[in-house]
């Protein structure tokens, strides 16, 4: 437990819990909207932002945020044009983001840079500024979700809730995309762009059997997410494996355990 006294470990736990709260909070909306792949798409778009930031010489992580906000707005606009299907758009931006990122990094090849930190996370390297930024993002995202709770519920329903003579539900959908963009932005720094989707989706699948309302589902998802992150990080202190891998392994373990318990519960009930 002496390891817990190190600042970088404390920052990892703090950043990890903030990320877990955000993914647990937004994950149910993501799953409900049938856009689980969107987090992967956003993560690849973030990589192009990171590449662009390298080119102009700013911090890669901070460069990812404007790219995410701009492209999520573009995706929202294209989706609402009704011309392209969501899965085709996902593949367009997923592959396109990665291709652009590779090109940008190649052009900026004088810079010593590894994509791996953003693909698989670098939670043990968080700085004070990173943690403050995460805390601020968590407060902003949580406040907006709380304030627009029911409109977000309607905007992510399938089929989407529509209101005659107003674009309000469409605007709420844009807000949802921006919130998801911010969560992915936090995710690429902590658990990694390729793994953030698992933390958005698996806790929801774990909790859905035990919830009877959406509010309960969100609270249980946050609980599962926080349990996965803290247990994964604790294990990483003693086992020589990447923290991101261990965190996702914990979510899969919790999902499997609940599936067994749920099956036994159902068997007992019949």
């Amino acid at each position, binding site marked *: 437990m002496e390891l817990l006294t190190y600042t970088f470990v404390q920052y990892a736990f703090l950043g990890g819990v903030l990320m877990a709260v955000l993914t647990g909070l937004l994950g*149910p909306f993501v*799953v*409900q909207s*049938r856009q689980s792949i969107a987090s992967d798409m956003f993560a690849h778009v973030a990589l192009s932002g990171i590449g662009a930031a390298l080119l102009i010489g700013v911090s890669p992580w901070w460069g990812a945020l404007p790219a995410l906000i701009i492209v999520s707005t573009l995706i929202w606009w294209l989706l609402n044009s009704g011309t392209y299907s969501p899965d085709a758009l996902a593949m367009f931006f997923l592959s396109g983001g990665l291709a652009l990122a590779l090109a940008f990094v190649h052009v900026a090849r004088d810079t010593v840079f590894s994509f791996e930190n953003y693909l698989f996370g670098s939670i043990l390297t968080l700085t004070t500024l990173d943690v403050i930024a995460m805390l601020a993002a968590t407060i902003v995202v949580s406040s907006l979700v709380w304030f*627009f709770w*029911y*409109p977000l*519920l*309607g905007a992510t*329903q*399938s*089929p989407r*809730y*529509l*209101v*005659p*003579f*107003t674009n*309000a539900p469409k605007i*709420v959908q844009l807000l949802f995309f921006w919130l998801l963009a911010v969560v992915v932005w936090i995710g690429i720094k902590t658990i990694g762009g390729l793994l953030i989707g698992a933390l958005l989706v698996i806790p*929801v699948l774990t909790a*859905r059997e035990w*919830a*009877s*309302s*959406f*509010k*309960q*589902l969100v609270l249980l998802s946050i609980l599962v997410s926080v349990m996965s992150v803290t247990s994964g990080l604790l294990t990483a202190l003693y086992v020589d494996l990447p923290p991101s891998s261990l965190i996702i392994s914990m979510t899969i373990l919790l999902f499997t355990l609940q599936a067994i318990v749920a099956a036994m519960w159902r068997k007992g009930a019949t």
Partner: protein
Amino acid sequence: MNNPVITVEGVTKVVAGRRLLDDVSFTIAAQSLVSLIGPNGAGKSTLVKIILGLDEKYTGSVTIGSGQRVQYIPQLVIDDQYQLPMSVYEYISIATNRLYGTKQKTVDFQKALAHVGVSADKLHQTHTSLSGGERQRVAIARALLGDPSILVLDEPLAAVDYASRAGLYALIRHLQQDHKMTVLLVSHDIDSVLPLSDQVLCLNQSLHTDCHPSDFTAKDGQYNQAVHHHC
């Protein structure tokens, strides 16, 4: 016709060279129950979305009377096994918040449920645990909380079992008269909706008939054949 609250003039919609609606014109009088009928692919849902301002890519004009409050009940999706848990309270609250111009309290929810024949203790149950008929009644209760003067229902009973349909149609007619609403009812269930309707619109890309239900000659109650002939 007195006091038209909905006026549709020359509405045409073309998608990829295909004419979904072709020069559709009609008016709907205040406090009437109007059925919009027609075969699959006739453009009924497209026309409804245009009337509701949810589809703006068309030519022609749609005018809604000033001061009208419109609520819309889309087709019910009943067999969605991927639906995440949502309570009836949450389902209703989606529509009743400040952003959409209505703010109601739990006590109003209970009254609204009772009004459509759903027990108030269902308010905190999971929405998916309700039967198709109950879910449609809850959808109507949610729309009524918006205090509409115009209520548009798109295939309201498509996913409801046959035994529940008569009661629900009677409820829609009763609520229309009780709340003095104008109701536009899109339906395939011609035998059931025609006897309730004040006006019938037969659509098949263009409007083939705009008439009173008595204009249909039903033989042994077989309205379907009569409508098929007209549409």
